[in-house]
């Protein structure tokens, strides 16, 4: 190879899509096909480069020598306020966690861009769409290679901006404009937490460098309470971005964006930034167990809550959105139990099978122009390929063996059983079963049974090859990526220690020897879940209606999203805007009209009254003079 490309050149990865963003944003009307092929080719190039980085990474960490610390490479001063005050030094950092993120981000991004060429065909602002996708990929890659917290925050806000622009892509639709705003502001609340966390950590360590901060924190040089508070603030940022309770409300609404965007940003990559952040700081979280417990229980609540809402939602994309929130909860439970490897593994498999499910739902929407499961049904006869790959994704999500989701979800369950209270394991296992139920419901209502909207059914058709090819590839990945858990697979790929040691940081149970009894239980539960789903929603789904009538309050609770969106809206309208009105009134009436204008009026009134002292009559003035002389005389006598 003529040009060396490896970890030191990792900064090139975000630079390519950044350049593409500028070119596409400014010049897309001049380019043939509005430049969509440039975006696709550029992303394919980045995938290639990621593999070169991977090769370099494995050659450095080869020979069974486990070095999780990674390396800090390529740095320059971005801001320098003064020696000894503060310097922001941009740098890139590559370790096992980065090496999970890079292929996930670039592969899914490439699939989504190729798919979008078909899906977005003929859309208004077609070129702008690809430009923002490139902006997103650039920011996302910057995020995962950042060696510095400010740089990370910059990229963090960058992916948020791309998300805002893409959720609001159809801004002429009121609901899309509102969803974009809601997503940005909700995640901003988390971002403020992240910013406060960064500021607090800087105050304690005097640096923004992530590895230096971790080293100082691990050495116990920061007060434990202070560190706990800082790390909880940091997690607040993660919870915002990764849509964890109580900041999860934006993600279902984010489905207003084009479906490929949901696949890339709101399933596979951006929403896992929070998981990445916590994993990145996992050595510190291991020191502050209270903060880790917060993560565990927030993740658990989110997993249960979101799965239950997925059970009653009728919009196909929103079901997948709730599923994403729930699965992210699984990852946080893993992080909260200290199983970083399991979390990252699930992040990887989830990215593939959830992107597959979203793109599959995109094909359904593209073919029928319907999103409500009430108006779908029976589509497997019209779209056999889509039905097949969607089923693969669903089996992976439900946790059926062979498929990728099984291995990683099992890893998480195993970790909770080992390192968390048993109640956590039981709840999470129940949620896994619930996952199988709602997944089955979604597949049945979309692809099986009789068509409920004959018109939509009649016009449905299989998607073009440009959309089906990425689906096929993702279906393969959703099947095989779970095998990465086996050391033999890693060794076959040229990693003597297996993938577990090199990439996932630690040896979890699958990486060495499978626990068949444990896996068998989990599989059985998933099968029971599928059975329940089948029993309720197969055929005329009379039983599902009966179940709804049996517990109408519960159903209403779930359909209304636990009333949280309403509660938040109420807080915004009544409390914040109410306070705003009150303060604005106070500012206008009291500060301005009473204080300022009142002062002016008082002066002018005083002037009006005092002018009558100027009578122009000599006796009056003489009287005043006499009073003055008398007063002065009294003062003089008093002083003498």
């Amino acid at each position, binding site marked *: 190879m003529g040009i060396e490309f490896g970890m030191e050149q990792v900064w090139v990865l975000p630079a390519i899509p950044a350049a593409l963003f500028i070119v596409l944003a400014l010049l897309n009307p001049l380019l043939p096909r509005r430049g969509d092929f440039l975006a696709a080719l550029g992303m394919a190039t980045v995938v290639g480069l990621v593999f070169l980085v991977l090769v370099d990474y494995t050659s450095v960490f080869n020979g069974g020598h486990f070095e999780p610390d990674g390396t800090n490479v390529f740095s320059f001063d971005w801001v320098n306020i003064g020696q000894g005050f503060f310097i922001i030094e941009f740098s890139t950092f590559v370790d096992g966690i980065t090496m999970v993120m890079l292929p996930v981000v670039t592969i899914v991004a490439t699939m989504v861009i190729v798919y979008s060429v078909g899906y977005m065909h003929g859309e208004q602002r077609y070129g702008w769409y690809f430009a923002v996708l490139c902006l997103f990929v650039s920011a996302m890659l910057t995020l995962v290679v950042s060696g510095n917290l400010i740089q990370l925050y910059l990229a963090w806000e960058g992916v948020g901006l791309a998300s805002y622009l893409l959720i609001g892509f159809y801004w002429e639709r009121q609901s899309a404009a509102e969803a974009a705003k809601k997503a940005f*502001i909700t995640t901003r609340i988390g971002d*403020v937490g992240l910013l406060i966390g960064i500021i607090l950590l800087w105050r304690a360590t005097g640096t923004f460098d992530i590895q230096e901060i971790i080293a100082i924190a691990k050495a116990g040089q920061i007060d434990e309470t202070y560190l706990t508070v800082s790390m909880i603030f940091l997690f607040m940022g993660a919870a915002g971005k990764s849509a964890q309770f109580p900041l999860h409300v934006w993600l279902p609404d984010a489905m207003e964006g084009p479906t490929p965007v949901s696949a890339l940003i709101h399933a596979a990559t951006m929403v896992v930034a929070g998981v990445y952040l916590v994993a990145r700081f996992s050595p510190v979280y291991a020191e502050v167990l209270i903060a880790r417990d917060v993560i565990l229980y927030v993740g658990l609540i989110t997993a249960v809550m979101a799965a239950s809402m997925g059970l009653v939602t009728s919009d196909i994309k929103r079901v997948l959105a709730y599923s994403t929130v729930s699965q992210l909860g699984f990852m946080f439970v893993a992080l909260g139990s200290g199983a970083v490897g399991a979390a990252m593994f699930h992040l990887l498999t989830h990215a593939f099978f959830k992107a597959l499910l979203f793109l599959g739902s995109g094909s359904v929407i593209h073919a029928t122009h319907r999103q409500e499961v009430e108006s779908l049904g029976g589509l497997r006869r019209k779209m056999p390929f889509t039905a097949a790959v969607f089923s693969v994704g669903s089996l992976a999500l439900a946790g059926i063996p062979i498929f990728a989701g099984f291995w990683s979800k099992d890893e998480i369950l195993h970790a909770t059983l080992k390192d968390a209270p048993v109640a956590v394991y039981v709840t999470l296992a129940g949620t896994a079963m619930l996952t199988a139920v709602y997944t089955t419901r979604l597949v049945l209502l979309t692809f099986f049974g009789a068509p409920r909207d004959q018109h939509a059914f009649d016009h449905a058709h299989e998607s073009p090859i440009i959309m089906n090819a990425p689906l096929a590839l993702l279906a393969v990945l959703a099947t095989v990526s779970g095998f990465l858990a086996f050391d033999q697979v890693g060794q076959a790929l040229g990693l003597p220690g297996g993938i577990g040691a090199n990439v996932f940081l630690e040896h979890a149970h699958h990486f060495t020897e499978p626990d068949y009894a444990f896996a068998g239980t989990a599989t059985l539960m998933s099968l029971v879940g599928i059975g329940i789903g089948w029993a309720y929603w197969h055929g005329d789904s009379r039983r599902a209606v009966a179940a709804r009538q049996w517990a109408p309050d519960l159903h209403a609770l779930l359909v209304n999203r636990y009333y949280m969106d309403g509660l938040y809206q109420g807080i915004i309208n009544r409390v914040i805007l109410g306070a705003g009105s009150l303060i*604005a009134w106070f500012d206008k009436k009291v500060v301005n009209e009473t204080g300022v204008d009142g002062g002016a009026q008082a002066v002018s009134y005083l002037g009006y009254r005092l002018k009558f002292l100027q009578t122009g009559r000599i006796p009056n003035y003489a009287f005043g003079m006499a009073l003055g002389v008398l007063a002065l005389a009294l003062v003089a006598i008093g002083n003498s």
Partner: protein
Amino acid sequence: MLTLFLLLPVAGALIAIALPAAREGEAKVIALAFTGLNFALAVVMYVVFDRGVEGYQFVERFEWIHGAGFTVQYVVGVDGLSAPLIVLLGLLSMVSVLVSWKIDVKPKHYFAWLLILESAVAGVFLSLDLIQFFLFWELELLPMFFLISQWGSGRRVYSAMKFLIYTLAGSALMLVGFLVIGFGAKTFDIEALTKTPPQETIVPLAIVFWAIMLAFLVKLPVFPLHTWLPDAHTDAPTAVSVMLAGVLLKMGGYGILRIVLPLMPNEAHDFSKVLATIAGFSVVWGAVITLRQTDLKRLVAYSSVSHMGYVLLGVSALGPVGLSGAALQMFTHGCITGLLFVMVGMIYDRTHTREIAKLRGLMHHMPLIGTVFIVAGLASLGLPAMSGFVAELTVFLGSIEAHPAATMAAVFGVVLSAGYILWTVERILHGPKTHDFHDLTDAKQWWEITAMAVLVVAIIGTGIWPAVLTDTVRLGIEPIAKIVEAAS
């Protein structure tokens, strides 16, 4: 060079006034030529500026008044603190001429006043003598008063008068303070006073501190001295709003950094808690009120109150980082809010309303104006890679140690600013097409495009490469920080 910068706009104003009535439409060309030239001069100065040394550069001085035991001089110079502000002034003056291109009421007087305004503000930023500083500080009121009361809209006379009286009341106290300091030390030279800060004066220094500080706090402005600002903005023509938000408010922050802190560092320490409380309060108070504004211009004006609170917060921290943050925030707020007012002006020119409730789906009809409005809005809410972020971050980092509670309040302001900006974007730009605006055109004229382009470049340029600013600002801040830290 600096005297030339000071006098060029005046020369332009004289030529504009001298135009025969038949050719008074050419006043704008003259104004553009002179502000453009002045901006070029500022950029040359900024490039030539020696970043290897601290202290004032390009100093020019001569003695002006010889009194009994004191001297008043004419002395100008720039350091790392004022150099970026001079560039900002040059830039925004040029932009304000561009956005005034369609002014046809008494154009030669209008542009002459605008040019004199540039000179007056330049005098404030360049003066290194207290009396000279005061003269220019007062001189700036004149063009502002006439520009608002003659070319404004709405309750323009009320607003102009309010602005005038408010500033005069502040500056009267400031003059007393200056005289107390100057007669005590037998000099009005800022550099000399900085080297040997006054120790004993006939009035306690704490009173002098507040007398001077009040004038600057009015100008900044902060709660509860801010109510002149929304009125002045709302009734002023676009160009004047740009100048007011962009550079005039900075005179307050500049005065604190240049005069109050180095001359009275002990008092600054004594009252830093008070200042931080006012600052934190201003940030949140301003932001919450902004949420409720129904008029676009008032909205931007109140957001200024909130954002200038960051300047005071940085100042109140009294450390090098906080002070740098304050200086950065002044520059960045000038560009961002300047651009926001330019955009509001363009929207108003087309729709003839600034009421948010009446505006809707504008993105359909003016995609360029909408896009630039969004860019300005994102910059205003502190999005990284735009200039506001580094400034705000620096302020927070600088103040967290000294004033944790006020800093937390200010950080919370970041959520509120995202709220009012994005809500506004949603309400006026997004949503379905409405029939009311179907005949509106996008920004197509060269002067509009240029005005937007230079500010967008400034905002994104300094956001991506903040070293352009920080390397210079640091030179100006370090000496001040040393004096202030030595006093603690």
